[in-house]
């Protein structure tokens, strides 16, 4: 972690619209030391008058590459996200500090089953874990439960579908509108859904939950209620409602 407090200058390589409210940014950061699956960074913007704003963003990419991938949802009253989602263009510069965090991290040496639970753009660090699982050929059973408002609000849909295998299962929860013919009515993540779509507590999975604070707290309560041990439920909240 030495050097984590240094700000590095990155250059936006691409900024692609991915959902109605979010973009995927590729940022080239010379000197980036690489990152583990699940880590985040701080991103700093400086206005012309010198005013600075710093926000944390999870990293969707994993490994030693110095080009890092971020997926950013626009928050209604945000100071930083509207700029990243609407304005920033390839060639623009950003400052980043990281990688940060050693708690919400998955390492390929972990042999136990892993249940990932994402709310909205909370999928980002879980995407890094899913990519690491896929790339390293890990045989640890992985299952991702991804809750989104509508199918259009999902990030990484095609890439995630490509991961599906004996050791990676993908389950969707749609909270506002579901695809045509979807067997369940849209609604918030409920106990029954979680029980049906998550690795059971008896198998002692490590569970990673990431999303808006309300989502993470609701999901954590349901997990404890279903018998998961608190010590095996790792959470990352990013504010919001």
């Amino acid at each position, binding site marked *: 972690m*030495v050097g984590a407090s240094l700000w590095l200058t990155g250059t936006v390589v691409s900024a692609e619209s991915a959902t109605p409210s979010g973009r995927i940014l590729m940022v080239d950061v010379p000197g980036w030391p690489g990152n583990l699956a699940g880590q985040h960074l701080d991103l700093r913007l400086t206005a012309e008058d010198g005013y600075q704003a710093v926000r944390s963003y999870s990293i969707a990419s994993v490994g030693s590459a110095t080009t890092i991938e971020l997926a950013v949802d626009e928050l209604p009253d945000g100071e930083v996200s509207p700029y990243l989602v609407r304005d920033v263009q390839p060639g623009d510069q950003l400052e980043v500090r990281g990688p940060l*965090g050693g*708690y919400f991290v998955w390492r390929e040496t972990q042999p136990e089953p892993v249940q990932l639970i994402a709310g909205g753009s909370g999928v980002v660090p879980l995407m890094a874990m899913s990519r690491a699982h896929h790339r390293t050929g890990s045989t640890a059973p992985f299952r991702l439960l991804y809750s989104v408002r509508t199918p259009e609000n999902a990030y990484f849909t095609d890439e995630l579908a490509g991961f599906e295998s004996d050791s990676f299962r993908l389950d969707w929860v749609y909270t506002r509108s579901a695809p045509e013919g979807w067997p369940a009515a849209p609604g918030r993540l409920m106990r029954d859904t979680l029980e049906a779509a998550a690795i059971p507590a008896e198998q002692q999975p490590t569970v990673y939950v990431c999303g808006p604070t309300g989502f993470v707290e609701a999901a954590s309560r349901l997990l404890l209620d279903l018998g998961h041990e608190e010590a095996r439920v790792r959470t990352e909240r990013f*504010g919001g409602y």
Partner: protein
Amino acid sequence: MARLTDGSEFVRVDGNAIAGPLSELLSADMTMAVVTCAPCGSGSVLATAVVELDPAGFIVLCPSCRHTLFTVVKTGNRMTLDVQGMTDLSVTV
């Protein structure tokens, strides 16, 4: 070299001598640091604490009893850590 009553030895120096060892503590990954809450005595991994962020700084609350563990406030170019609500912080080095 000075000697304690139990016979063990120590060296009396000044704060400059602990720059290295303290950097080991203070540059460690803080999400995995364990903090002990002064009011309730429970130890928590810092990543599990409740944090209230605002433009001036942040307040870190014990996930067990919700008392304040510590606060960090930035005023101009000065950053202040107030640790009144915690008894210790430990990291793996």
